[in-house]
């Protein structure tokens, strides 16, 4: 069901770990839904010089996290923000339909890390931060139902 690229990034994920003195940290997802992604970035000027991730989730979540970090390393913040979940999924030669939400998680994670950096730098205010996608509707509904 998974492409060879997904399996490659699942078995040999790139950029796993944390950056203790990260310039920006984004954490998205929810343990209830079975996936959490945490992404750490180092920024020099407006270039992302280093990136690491930690992910709790299925193979697709791990592979999309890994691919997303590869895609943004060495890119400017604007270039990184232009990356969508489709970019990540395409770079992995596609994901099964039921797993597309994992690629949304990766996009949200990147955005959250960049916005955290911008907020720390005073480039944006809390109000200007984008809302993450309702990336897992069933799970989000479930959350709502259970308060």
């Amino acid at each position, binding site marked *: 069901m998974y492409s060879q690229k997904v399996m490659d990034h699942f078995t040999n994920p790139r950029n796993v770990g944390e950056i203790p003195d990260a310039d920006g940290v984004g954490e998205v997802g929810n343990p209830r839904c079975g996936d959490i*992604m945490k992404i750490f970035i180092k920024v020099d000027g407006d270039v992302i010089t280093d990136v690491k991730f930690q992910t*709790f*989730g299925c*193979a697709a979540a791990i592979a999309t996290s890994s691919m997303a970090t590869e895609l943004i390393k060495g890119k400017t913040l604007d270039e990184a923000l232009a990356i969508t979940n489709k970019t990540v999924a395409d770079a992995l030669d596609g994901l099964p339909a*039921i797993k597309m939400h994992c690629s949304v998680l990766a996009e949200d994670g990147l955005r959250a890390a960049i916005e955290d950096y911008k907020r720390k730098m005073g480039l944006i205010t809390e109000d200007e931060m984008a809302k993450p996608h309702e990336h897992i509707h*069933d799970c989000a509904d479930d959350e709502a139902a259970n308060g």
Partner: protein
Amino acid sequence: MDRKIYMDHAATTYVKPEVLDEMLPYFTDKFGNPSSIYFYGREAKEAIEMAREKVAAAIGAEPSEIYFTSGGTESDNWAIKGAAFAGKKKGNHIITSAIEHHAVLHTCQYLEKLGFEITYLPVDQYGLINPDDVRRTITDKTLLISIMTANNEIGTIEPISEIGKIAREQGVYFHTDAVQAIGSMDIDVKSLNVDMLSLSGHKFYGPKGIGSLYIKKGVKIDQFMHGGAQERNRRASTENVPGIIGLGKAIELATATMPQRREHLTRLRDRLIKGIMDKIPFVRLNGHPTERLPGNANLSFEFIEGESMLLSLDLKGVAASSGSACTSGSLDPSHVLLAIGLPHEIAHGSLRLTLGDDNTEEDVDYVIEILPDIVERLRQMSPLFAEREGELKNV
């Protein structure tokens, strides 16, 4: 990695060669329709009646109480809808549990839409249903109690003997889904006071697409499949003759070899559970420690997700299953694991290994050997594990 180890026998089993040998002539030479009066038909008819006797003998029923179906799901559907529709004048209430197979739960949910009232009994931390809860929830509108013999995910064996007794005292029909239990534990429908029992061939080395519903003599249930007069007018459709022959042979073998199987599987299961829990921290056993199916090991590994574990095991040649959302096609983890009170994130990290006749001590030891590295690798990637490590450092 050319090693291949199958540890998902609760999902399905292979067909034993002795079973297949008995089936084969019924695809070719003995292909007759059992409803035909000429030789070919009579030959097939006699063979399915022999198989019926074997199924009856395995569960302590009369052959006339055994009906062949397409499998466990149809048997569950028929028992529940059939009893509900036939009993509409008496009442509209059905009692079941929160941990039943979807074949039971989704059937009950469908009946709810039609106006039936369903009580879904909770279970304790081991997955056990309390018979007193059954007794307390029976009303004069209760038509049916449907409680599984043993759970397919966590292996917990339910107190169906006590539940059967209560049902009989109260004059309520009792159905049990015994799909996972056949071949692993003694089942006698008479002493258990069971009115209907579902079973399925492919869970005990028989073919897929064949099962049976035991319906005690006198139990009123509506017909499910309408059409011809097969199965004494109660289940239309030309009989799946090779499947029925295979089911008969498989259940005969499964019950004849049960003591050895129980001994073998229990020994391997306990070795597997102990081996894993000794070597890996932050693991919990799901289901009852002793009142569980002999071949079932279900464990939750904190901080990691089940599908990642399954794929990693698959890469090492081990076939297993998980209650994680990502393996079910839905986004919620197993309803059984949630019902025993596991938090979502721990339910997502479950692994089910179900052993079978051909598994060996070497198979078990291999899994015990490779699993720690798989779990460790995934934990090293997990932010939940990192957070916990961080908390420890700060204490």
